[in-house]
């Protein structure tokens, strides 16, 4: 162990002074909280806990875990996971009102995993993984099976270090029906080095977190470069949690807020294990007007960055700096609007989408997706991934993509048809969105009649169709600098921009609720089913008896004599008896 640790330490020390941040151990924790007021007046709080471990997990060479949770580490090692992304979300991020999210997740549970090329049976590993994760996070991930798993070809790329992008090693599944609650939050909190005892995690009080408009928690594991030269691999675990608080209903129309108001707690210290602990407050001026809002207490510093094509400034509170807790024992960030906002005009995000089911009746229907590009002069392509369960039978010939009244031919289409009870439809398309346009993608479907045992207990509620995924490189209006990716807050480091002119956006549309034709599960229906079964059984056995021809099998006599005779006949070359 020691023999292994010493060279690693040396390696870490060699790398551009990162060892100072990493401390004497080989792992480091950085905790961050970003508070951003949303255009519609709500407040989004995003926690991120980044654990970075300079060890080579999949080799199985490690057995001593310090900050990195052992449950996840061993899972990664045992199942040959290269990258794991799990998000559990309650609610829906309303892009139109809340703007582009730092990291969006679809309603329900989402899991996507890249396996190591050494894994031979990916499906088996995937099944095992989802079952283990189901146990770790108390979520119904064990419902992930072949009927809702797909292998996208273009939408999902590895976010960490990767040699090849052979998409056969990728599995993706969404469970839109999954309900997320405290029983999922508790195991998630337990993975944190400080638990919820110290640091930013003290704010994670379930009672308040679920008294919000949106709740999304995620776990991302990926391999990253250990240093700039990228000779060795480190593993990174990001635990993120996003909540949106509705300031309107809680504040009687006033949109002021504070940490205490949102979480009913204040910050008193940093997590002792953390090498960085910061609170960022988004104080970027809106509508070109400055000084609309006021933050107390005074921030330790102000950080400016370009995030998602927009210039943002953040007030930073460093919990590790001793000056912060000098004046008062706790930090309660307060946020005040200097004058009430009176305009209903909100900045519209460059890319947003809407999806719905159209038509009526229980025979056919249509899934329509509207994708908006509100960029004034730049067109950009977007990859759309649709996963539709098999019981909605898509008519692919009805697929129409219309932009500004004209047909828009996708430059790439990957369609994998569904197989009943085996695999869902997968439709991936690369569509060019002209500047300032709405693109309507519609496809018709027929509703299948299920077998009567396949209906859930509440068939009249409807059946969910998972969110479709939009991935795009959105051109930025402001030229972006090449920043130090490692140091920038929160999520910019998860999706680094390839060049300075565009940034990556992944959006999820609404899940859909589709009614299927359901039989009347009442007494007459049961009677019919029962009668049919009884009749079928009786008729079947009678029919069997009546049509079968019986003949008596002659017991073979004179076994030994016959055998001897046959041997003799064999020698003589005569056919046996």
């Amino acid at each position, binding site marked *: 162990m020691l023999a292994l640790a010493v060279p690693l330490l040396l390696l870490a020390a060699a790398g551009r002074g990162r060892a100072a941040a990493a401390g004497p151990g080989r792992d480091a924790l950085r905790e961050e909280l970003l508070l951003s007021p949303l255009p519609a007046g709500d407040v989004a709080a995003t926690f991120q806990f980044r654990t970075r471990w300079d060890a080579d997990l999949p080799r199985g060479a490690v057995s001593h875990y310090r900050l990195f949770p052992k449950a996840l580490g061993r899972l990664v090692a045992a199942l040959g996971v290269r990258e794991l992304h799990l998000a559990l979300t309650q*609610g829906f991020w309303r892009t139109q009102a809340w703007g582009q999210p730092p990291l969006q997740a679809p309603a*329900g549970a989402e899991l996507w995993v890249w396996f190591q090329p050494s894994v031979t049976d990916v499906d088996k590993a995937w099944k095992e993984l989802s079952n283990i994760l189901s146990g770790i996070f108390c979520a119904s991930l064990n419902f992930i099976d072949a009927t809702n798993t797909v292998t996208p070809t273009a939408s999902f790329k590895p976010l960490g270090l990767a040699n090849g992008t052979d998409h056969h090693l990728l599995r993706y599944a969404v469970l839109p029906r999954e309900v997320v609650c405290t029983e999922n939050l508790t195991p998630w909190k337990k993975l944190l080095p400080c638990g919820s005892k110290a640091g930013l995690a003290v704010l994670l009080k379930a009672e308040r977190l679920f008294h919000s408009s949106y709740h999304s928690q995620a776990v991302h594991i990926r391999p990253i470069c250990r240093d700039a030269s990228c000779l060795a691999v480190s593993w990174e675990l990001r635990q993120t949690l996003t909540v949106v608080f509705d300031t309107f209903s809680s504040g009687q129309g006033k949109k002021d807020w504070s940490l205490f108001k949102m979480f009913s707690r204040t910050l008193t210290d940093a997590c002792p294990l953390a090498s960085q602990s910061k609170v960022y407050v988004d104080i970027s001026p809106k509508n070109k007007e400055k000084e609309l809002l006021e933050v107390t207490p005074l921030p330790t510093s102000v950080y400016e960055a370009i995030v998602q094509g927009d210039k943002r400034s953040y007030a930073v509170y460093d919990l590790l700096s001793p000056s912060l807790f000098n004046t008062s024992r706790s930090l309660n960030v307060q946020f005040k609007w200097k004058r009430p906002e009176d305009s209903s005009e909100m900045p519209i995000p460059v890319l947003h989408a*809407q999806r719905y089911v159209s*038509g009526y009746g229980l025979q056919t229907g249509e899934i329509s997706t509207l994708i908006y590009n509100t960029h004034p002069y730049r067109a950009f392509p977007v990859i759309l991934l649709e996963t539709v369960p098999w019981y909605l039978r898509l008519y692919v010939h009805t697929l129409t993509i219309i932009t500004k009244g004209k047909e828009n031919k996708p430059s790439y289409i990957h369609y994998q048809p569904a197989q009943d009870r085996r695999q869902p439809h997968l439709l991936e398309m690369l569509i060019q969105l002209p500047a300032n346009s709405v693109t309507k993608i519609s496809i018709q479907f027929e509703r299948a009649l299920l077998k009567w045992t396949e209906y859930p207990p*509440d068939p009249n*509620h409807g059946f*969910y169709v998972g969110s479709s995924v939009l991935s795009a490189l959105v051109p930025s209006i402001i030229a972006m600098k090449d920043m130090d990716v490692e140091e920038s807050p929160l999520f910019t480091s998860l999706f680094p921009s390839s060049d300075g002119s565009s940034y990556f956006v992944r959006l999820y549309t*609404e899940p859909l609720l589709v*009614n299927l034709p359901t039989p009347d599960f009442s007494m007459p229906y049961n009677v019919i089913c029962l009668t049919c079964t009884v009749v079928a059984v009786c008729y079947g056995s009678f029919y069997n008896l009546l049509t079968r021809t019986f003949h008596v099998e002659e017991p073979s006599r004179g076994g030994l004599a016959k055998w001897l005779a046959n041997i003799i006949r064999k020698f003589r070359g005569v056919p046996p008896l």
Partner: protein
Amino acid sequence: MSENAMGSTMVEEQFSLGERALALARDFAAHKKKAGGMPTAWLEKTMWSLGLEVHQQQFSHTLPFPDESRERYLVRGTNVYGILRAPRAASTEALVLSTGCAPGPHNNQAVGLLLALASYFRGQIYWAKDIIFLVNEHDLLGMEAWLEAYHDVNITAVRSSGPLGRAGAIQAAISLELSSDVVTSFDVAVEGLNGQLPNLDLLNLFNAFCQKNGLLCTIQGKLQRSDWDSLPAYARSLQTLLLMVLAQASGRPRGEHGLFLRYRIEAVTLRGINSFRQYKYDMSTVGKTLEGMFRKLNNLLERLHQSYFFYLLPSLSRFVSIGVYMPAFGFLILVLILRALDLWMKLNKTDPGGSDQLSDSDHGPSTTEAPRLLALVPPVLVCHAAGLALYYLPVLGQSVATQHFPVSEAEAVVLTLIAIYVAGMALPHSTHRVLGGPGSVAAARGWMVLKLLALLYLAAQLTALALLNFSLGFLLAVTMVPAAAATAPTGPRVLLALVLVLATPAVTLLLGIFLERELVEAPAAPGEGWQRFLGALGQGLLLHHLHGAFLCPLLALGTYPCWLLLWNVLFWD
């Protein structure tokens, strides 16, 4: 109540913004007067300040002919709606509270109450479904435009603009009509387009909350008598039942909720009544009732499906289920079937050779049956041609009619309709004599075959109809079945002709109008009745062209030709 999720009434309603509702209603009225129509900007601003996500939809529609009762032809309007997004829900399900913005002082309080409810609901945390607060213009037209745009279908020729904000599958809708600051009672309207009915649970829900809050509630404008076991109470129930049958048979939506039913959204219209009764209820009580209903609907785990979709209501708390009324209808249809069987037997009996030949060789039918069947072709064709003319000509020929006669378009349409209807009875009915040769045996028995055909045709039509709209099927069956069974060229022809004319759908409609006026205790004079009849014809046509009601094509293309066949039978010789 059958739905488990709406079972208990544990919650206490806390809506107390009655005064606010009235203030908003006054504001709305003032802005409506200033704008001379729907105050779109004010509504948008108010809804936004209440914390809703506001959208608007513009629509326009050109009617096939001017609607004289409402004075409109080219309709332009705007629907404004706000969506209350439920926290931690993914916008998969929604509820709708809608109210119409009518010209004049009508329905202002409904808008006020809607806004007050929106403001109260916004502050609550328990919503699991999005709630859409919709203020629509031009009553049914606006609602149709909104529903079609929401479901992205285009059934009628309404044009609407722009993409909309959506909130998933709508589970239930309540439409509100309220024109006074206080109410004495609430009337609930259930009948929708084509006589569709909402699930009985929704009605029971309303009834339960009325009883909880002590509100008086009525159906068909009739209050249930407390002594339900007495003779006058039975008479009252019968009146209510008959009114419901007439209303359902008309296929006209009794409120704005009626259009929701096509999309399988359970909906009712609640209409506040302010009469001379002593005890009045204020807005808070009304709001509490609605709050309770919405909270219950919010609890729904599945679409309303447990209770009945087919029922008749003699009072709000009692219903006649489909299992009870369907046998009665079955017996009526049985008359036709038996009569047809009788004719079939007679045909076979008088011509035993023919039927033997039919079974023995292929030559037989060609010699004896063919002229008989051939003789049937012209009357069937002529009758259906008359039906087609009845369906298409009035609307197509309105410009020709207005050029040649001093009438307006709407009058022209209705008068053409009546003219074609009457002319159909005078069409040539003696083609069989030319074809079959006079006095032949086949020609003499031709009427039997024709009647057999007409009876079976009628029976099939009425049965199919009773499954779609029981009341209409029942009314038609009650009037047409005796006449159809009795019709024959032999016997007292004048009497039979009179019976048959009385049984024609148009006369049924006329009589239905008189009966309806009688039942609502406002009997109509013959002149007024006739005016209402003309109005009903025009409205029926409009309802078909604007909302796709099937009554008009059904009568023109199905029942009327069938009746003409019977008329042919009567005048066979």
